[in-house]
């Protein structure tokens, strides 16, 4: 019990590690829950980068050695950023449906929490390798190269990026024990943190209707996470990072937008899962296309700026792999262009079937209907559409590499791996439906 409390406190300290983000001028005007969520994003990314760097340089992890530099750097940045002037933002009016939307969102999250707490949504991958890596890393006081190199760790996908095991190992290092039953419950925190950050971002663009989009997003994502066994694995953090990135880019101002938070979130996405890299590429390409279509000056430079975060994340992980004598990069499912189109029919059928998200496809159908209704505004939401199509296309391409019918693998992976696409689709539909007509005409 005591270890569980220390583990929780250690996880809470991750917010302190990224507290600078809460004081950045682009975030400071947000309400406190959103600022804490931004700090969680930055803290997770900084801790993962620092811990990976330590292991590359053969510096042993300890609570003090990991925490002190992050607290110092974050504190100094927070001080510097908090002195910058920002425009005060008026508290927007509270529409009638805000309360209803909040109740629906809360009920969705309560369902998710119950499902995780009662162990009905735990990922088996958490027991097979996510949690195992965390335990081994904490025990080895660093990323355990010997474990990753072992021929008997093949199932632990040693090439997967390290953010999730590092965050869990950090807690285990501080508490001296891995709380196997508690950890899956914490997956809900990522979804709730994403919702917290969506509020000011959507409100900036949509005004009062932001709440109803938030309600649909929260309920759809909660049922999807519970249905797809996402407790304890990397799905919830990946969903968080990709949702923050896509929401930042969809709602950014037209003039000189700050892309700090989006860049941090994309760095987090590539450090969380391989699909995070595919999503980052799609999202950056979509943003470039949108800005190009708007004839915005500096569109290419803006896209390059956005790519710094994910490039840094990949560089950190691949540098570690090289320094530890591991294969550098990600293990492909066969040769790149050796495909088995004979399974196309099965892939299409099964992908369609397994996109039901625990709501009999309603979570997908409703935003698709809204997007068709407001199809003329597609350019506005190009980054999100690029993420949806890019991610689903990436997964289909991956399944086409299977020599045997990948039906079973689709059933195992698609409900989890498609969640970021679902999130982006809901946000795209919300923005297309509620963006003011004048603004969409300008765009």
């Amino acid at each position, binding site marked *: 019990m005591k270890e569980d409390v220390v583990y929780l406190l250690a996880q809470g300290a991750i917010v302190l590690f990224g507290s600078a983000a809460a004081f950045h001028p682009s975030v400071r005007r947000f309400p406190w829950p959103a600022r804490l969520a931004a700090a969680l994003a930055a803290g997770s990314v900084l801790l993962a980068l620092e811990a990976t760097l330590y292991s590359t340089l053969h510096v042993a992890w300890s609570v003090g050695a990991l925490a002190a530099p992050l607290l110092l750097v974050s504190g100094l940045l927070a001080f510097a950023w908090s002195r910058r002037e920002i425009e005060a933002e008026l508290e927007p009016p509270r529409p009638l449906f805000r309360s209803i939307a909040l109740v629906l969102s809360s009920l969705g999250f309560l369902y998710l929490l119950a499902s995780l707490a009662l*162990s*009905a*949504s735990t990922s088996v991958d958490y027991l*097979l390798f996510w949690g195992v890596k965390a335990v081994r890393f904490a025990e080895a006081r660093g990323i355990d190269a010997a474990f990753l190199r072992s021929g008997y760790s093949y199932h632990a996908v040693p090439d997967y990026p390290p953010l999730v095991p590092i965050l869990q190992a950090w807690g285990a290092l501080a508490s001296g024990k*891995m709380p196997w039953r508690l950890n899956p419950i914490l997956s809900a925190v990522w979804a709730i943190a994403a919702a917290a950050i969506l509020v000011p971002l959507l409100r900036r663009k949509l005004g009062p209707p932001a709440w109803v989009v938030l309600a649909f997003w929260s*309920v*759809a994502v909660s049922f999807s996470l519970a249905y797809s066994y996402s407790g304890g694995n990397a799905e919830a953090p990946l969903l968080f990072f990709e949702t923050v990135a896509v929401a930042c880019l969809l709602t950014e101002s037209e003039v000189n937008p700050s892309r700090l938070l989006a860049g941090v979130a994309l760095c987090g996405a590539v450090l969380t899962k391989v699909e995070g890299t595919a999503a980052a590429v799609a999202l950056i390409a979509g943003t470039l296309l949108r800005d190009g279509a708007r004839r915005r000056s500096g569109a290419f430079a803006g896209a390059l700026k956005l790519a710094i975060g994910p490039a840094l994340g990949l560089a950190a992980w691949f540098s570690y792999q090289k320094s530890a004598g591991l294969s550098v990069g990600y293990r492909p499912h066969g040769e790149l262009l050796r495909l088995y189109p004979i399974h196309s029919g099965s892939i299409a059928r099964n992908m369609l079937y397994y996109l039901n998200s625990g709501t009999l496809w309603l979570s997908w159908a*409703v935003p698709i209907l809204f997007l068709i209704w407001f199809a003329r505004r597609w350019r506005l939401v190009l980054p999100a559409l690029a993420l949806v199509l890019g991610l689903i296309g990436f997964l289909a391409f991956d399944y086409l590499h299977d020599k045997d019918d990948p039906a079973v693998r689709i059933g195992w992976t698609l409900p989890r791996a498609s969640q970021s696409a679902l999130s982006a689709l809901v946000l795209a539909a919300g923005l297309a439906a509620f963006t003011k*007509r004048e603004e969409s005409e300008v765009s």
Partner: protein
Amino acid sequence: MVRRRRHLPGFDRRLAAAWIAASALLFLPGIWSSRLPPPRAFRVPQTPVDLTWDRYARFWLFLKEARHHVPPGETYTVIAADREDEMYLYMFSLGLFEKQTALPSSYFGTPTADGARARYLLVYQSAPRTTGDRLVAKLENGAVYERTEMRP
């Protein structure tokens, strides 16, 4: 020139109501396809996978019980009558036996020679084993043995 507004103020309201209704509607199929038991049957789970996979929950309980009988720094292997059970037990054990060294008797169904070098045997249910090993503990779902004769 004053531009005529195509969207009346009420349009956004109706649209918002449609989104709210759709959000509420999600609960019907969501709860219908839920894996949660009725509230009366709620209980604190014993393993991380009690309501997820019963079979894995049994593996977890066996390993949790067995780990106290393998001293830190020692080697162990898992033996099960079913090769797939054996594989999962080995993989799960890596997270629970962090201070011991696992030597699998098989990996993805293929027997390995390394398991024979392990000092402790975690025997799941009634898996066959060589006679002469010392019984360390009898567990609910198997037993822990110590090899009296170690192979080099």
